């Protein structure tokens, strides 16, 4: 409570310097977290985060705020488990309440194929110490009695689910501000309204960036720009296995608490939760085409509504207040892409698709270690960008809203 009475400054305005040890392109969760851990863990404080708009303008501020670790490959489970654990302590670590609230996540199955997949997911999670259990229809009803088990009169009957009781929802913007504030306290510079226009190279290595505010020299440069990574890659003259698809979501008006769970359905490509403010947050699958347009489309709003009502009929009378769209940097295997690139001293954290928000702490921590030491941490070694070339894809069938 004392915190309320103390005068606080969270975010500061820094003067731009002509040189930094580390320049991070993109002031979203991933960029800011990497900056924070560089300063906190490795003592690298001469770091600038460059954001062309405002911090958190991209995917970090446009997701469904779910944190979970019930993934489907040993590599991703280890990674997201670490991130999930870090999230649970992040508020204390950064002295900023991210409103991380366990709600329990139900991943519904409406078909034999999904039943089998959800069973498989539970078994795999248990093998790696992640708490996920398979529930049959009766078990689902017990955990979430509001569900229409017929799925809208037999359209999508609910046959079972993978239940991940530690699944959380959070306040996404707080993650941005918390990392920004904590990293600035440690001396990191965060610059908003500065756009990177080029990557400077010398003798085959990256030596800095050019920006709308002039050139900046840097020891190492990292891209953490989410959906716009292909543009940055083009500046660096490298190719990444990434394409960008829009992803949409909306919230309803605010209502008294009526729903405590997070419900996701792989067959219906939809997830539903109620925020602490009382708004119902409904998201769906990526749009089936590549685009940078951040425009909401009516087919999304209409079809997500129809599917949401099929699962939770009481949603029918709630009113949609606000819809938005984000750009997702999709990788071919639905797993992230982190690490070195063909350009020396230029690193990427990308391929965050629809699964990036929950990965912010572990990605930041790992990328910071890579930038500081030049060595790829074991946790992210499988996620190297060139894995597709030699058939080491990390095929992730438990990513949300993708397939």
């Amino acid at each position, binding site marked *: *409570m004392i*915190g*309320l009475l103390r005068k606080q*400054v969270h*975010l500061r305005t820094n003067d731009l310097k002509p040189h930094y040890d580390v320049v991070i392109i993109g002031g979203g969760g991933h960029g800011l977290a990497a900056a924070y851990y560089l300063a906190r863990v490795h003592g690298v404080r001469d770091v600038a985060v460059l954001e062309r*708009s*405002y911090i958190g303008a991209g995917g970090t501020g446009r997701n469904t705020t779910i944190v979970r670790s019930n993934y489907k490959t040993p590599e991703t489970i280890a990674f997201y488990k670490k991130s999930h654990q870090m999230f649970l302590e992040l*508020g*204390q670590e950064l002295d*900023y*309440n991210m*409103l*991380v*609230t366990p709600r329990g996540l139900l991943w519904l199955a*409406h*078909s034999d194929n999904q039943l*089998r997949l959800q*069973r*498989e997911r539970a078994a795999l999670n248990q*093998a*790696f110490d992640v708490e996920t259990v398979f529930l049959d229809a009766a078990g689902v009803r017990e955990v979430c009695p509001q569900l229409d088990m017929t799925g809208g009169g*037999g*359209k999508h009957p609910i046959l079972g689910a993978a239940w991940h009781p530690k699944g959380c929802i959070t306040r996404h*913007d707080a993650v941005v*501000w918390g990392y920004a504030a904590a990293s600035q306290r440690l001396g990191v510079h965060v610059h*908003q*309204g500065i756009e990177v226009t080029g990557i400077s190279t010398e003798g085959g290595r990256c030596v800095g960036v050019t920006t709308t505010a002039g050139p900046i020299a840097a020891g190492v440069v990292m891209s953490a720009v989410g959906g716009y990574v292909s543009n940055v890659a083009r500046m660096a003259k490298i190719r990444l296995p990434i394409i960008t698809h829009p992803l949409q979501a909306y919230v309803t*008006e*605010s*209502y*008294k*608490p*009526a*729903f405590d769970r997070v419900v996701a359905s792989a067959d219906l490509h939809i997830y539903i939760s109620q925020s*602490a*403010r*009382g708004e119902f947050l409904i998201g769906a699958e990526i749009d089936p085409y590549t685009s940078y347009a951040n425009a909401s*489309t009516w087919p999304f709003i*209409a*079809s997500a*509504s*129809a599917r*949401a*009502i*099929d699962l939770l009929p*009481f949603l*029918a*009378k*709630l*009113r*949609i207040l606000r*819809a938005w769209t984000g750009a997702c940097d999709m990788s*071919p295997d*639905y797993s992230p892409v982190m690490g070195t690139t063909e350009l020396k001293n230029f690193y990427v954290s990308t391929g965050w698709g629809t699964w990036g928000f929950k990965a912010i702490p572990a990605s930041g921590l790992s990328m910071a270690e890579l930038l500081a030491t030049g060595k790829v941490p074991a946790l992210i070694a499988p996620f190297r960008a060139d894995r*597709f070339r*030699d*058939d*080491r894809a990390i095929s992730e*069938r438990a990513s949300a809203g993708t*397939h």
Partner: protein
Amino acid sequence: MSSIEFEGRAVELKPGDSVASALFRAGVRIFSRSFKFHRPRGLYCLTGDCPNCLVTVDGEPAMRACCTPAQPGQRVRRDMGWPSASFDVFSVFWLLRWLLPVGFYYKTFLHPRSLWPVMDKLIRRVAGLGEVPRDLPHVHRETWHHHPDLLVIGGGVAGLSAALAAAKAGQSVVLAEEHGFGEKLAGGETKNRVQSLLAELRAQPKATVLERAAAVGIFEGPLVPIDGPDFLHYAHPARVVVATGAVERHAVFPGNDLIGVWLGRGAARLAGAHGIAPGARVVFAGDTAESLEHLTVLRANGAQVVLAALPASLASRAPTGVRVVVGGKLVAARGRSRVRAAVVESPAGREAISCDALVVSVGLDPRDGLLRQPVPGLAVVGAGEVVRPGMTVAEAEDSGRRAAVGRADVTGDRDLPGAPQAGFVCLCEDISAGDLEQAWAEGYRSTEILKRYSTVTMGPCQGAMCHAHLRAFAKAKGGPTWTSGPTTARPPIRPIRLEDAAAGLGHLIDMRTALHERHLAAGAAMELAGPWSRPQTYGDTLAEYWAVRRGVSIMDVSTLGKFLLAGRDATEFLERLYPCHVRDLTEGRLRYAIALNEGGYVLDDGLIGSLGTAGYYLTFTSSGAEGIESWLRDWIETWKLRVHVVNQTVPQGAINVAGPRARDLLQRLTRDAIDNQTFPYSRHKEITVAGITCRALRVGFVGELSIELHHSRSDSVKLWDALLEAGRELDIKPHGMDALRMLRLEKGHILIGQDTDFDSTPAKLGLEFAVKMDKPYFIGKPALQRIASTGMEQKFVAVAFEGPKAPFEGAALMLDGSHIGNLTSARFSPVLGHGIGLGWVRRRNGQFPTAVEAVGVPGKIIHGPFYDPKGDKLRA
């Protein structure tokens, strides 16, 4: 006398009443409690823009009382407050506001760790505007499409005039008005003109007028969904005129949220349209051109205006008998929950005038959300006050006529109010000017970040009241331009129910084969595979299984993907498409084929049958069929080849006749030669069965002699019945999916999607035989060449379990107690007497395992199919 029920008491109605006007007349002053501090709030804008009159009507929360026409029998209650909105315990939050500054939840509840979950529950309980309605029936609505030359959104003078001009010029016009026509107007010249223009428009043959129909947004398409009382109208216009008018600017000053503070148009509407004075003693502070009209209307309806603070430009024309303070400036409103006095400052000094209503007009802001949603390729122009607030009736008519021919009035930069100094900037979320100052001091220094941190503009009004003030605040701070830019306008422009948004959708798509009724009559339990219903079992799966293994059985396989390919380049196309050879496939031959994507990963599998000069007959899996057609067409276009594709999936039925006695059965129904010499395995030919022309395919998915009969869907029932009839002596039984899954598993055949993953190469699956790397090219070949030397980390294997128990599908495969893979298919094998499965294993220490365990059941990894490894039976 008609009435509505308000929290247990009857409230009388007069003609033209809204819920708000009826309640106000009956003495209700507190209409709601605010979101954060539970401040009592009363009527304010009366145009549907502010959040103050959100009430529950007939069980549905957050309805705007001012825009909800009163209907006899309605039940109305207020959403917020405990035990009631009139006396709300939670209003104590206002006294504790020093403990609840903007963003307080980000700064506290961190220690001890167990505190936040408790606080979360508390905050949730207090937040929220209304109860979720649980008992109201879901109304399924449909859509109604319009394709007008011109869509006009907004039925005021400008909108009606635009629509009328276009209609008179012979164009088809749809005009959508969110409320009732003229309903929000106080009366006078504007209302009269609305009525006369409307009458004229209704007489136009090509004009469609939609009332109480709110445009939700302008989307690509173009598509403008319009939420009407009957349908969700889908307008697909060639051009759009937006004439949504202006919203009266929210006035920010100390005490501005007290009950009894009114915006000018709201007070005038209450007086002019409903004949109710907003108060007995009214202080009036007006800066806008229409202030004098408001003043007149108020006085004509029984309000005593005790003081009017007017600028010099208006003061000279003020009605007589009103005390006018020229250049008087409203400083504050005083009172605890209701306004008791207004403080006005003038060159003569500052004075407090006691009053019970304070009417404020400080300016107008365009209601231009729709104009800020540009859609490429669609001409959208504004007309009337949305372009330039404060127009006269004649100006608005002109503006509408110009817009009708596509000429938009020039808009200047939107003028912003002065920076808010004190008072509530945001009524929805209880954000004061001081809160914005604090957030700014904490470092949240742009409109977008201020919005997210303080939640200003994020409430039910979506910024209608506060957006201009937020920008004015940020602009006054003098940062770079982007820090005071407008926040993004997001659809929907007006909140829309999920069920209304879902209009026209949510129908059950239930695809049935021609034999559906036959399956039901035979007692089949059906299962869904995508949109298709298929028989899972007819009741005795084991008997179905044995019928295939020992006798004869039939299965409806009509859901298989089936395509005819023809054209000059068909062979060349398939050579490029498939990793197997196609050119050497002579007429009458069949070949198993897998389809790869560019990554060399397996997409689908099926058969290729050559029809000679007539082209090819292709089959794919049931689940793949839908996507495969676009895949085929994509590649045909990419390569610019002359190939014609006919999707036969629905028109062609297919029945598989399987089992050692399958030939016995068919010979009873055909005179065509089907002996093993003339019709061996892996061939197809046209035969006549029970008088029905069929393409017969000798295939082997179940591991026994089997002949698939593809035929016209219209003959399916006749063929099915004939087969069952002729097979009676052979003890024929149809089999369903459950038996099929056991049969195919014994043969080790993969099911695409179930056994395969996104990165399943032919080599990992053991399907190298279907890939001919000596071909010059096929889709995926470059990728397979590239990875040929990298070796496999994962491999698909067959596992023979010990004992009769098969682990569940999806079980983890373990080696020495740790995870080494997963089981994708598993069943008990009746013919072998033990459990069998297929799944993926990884290398450990460089080696693939030779034995694994799944849920405690040990299993050996074996090579080749479990059943009839040499394939003698299916070649019999």
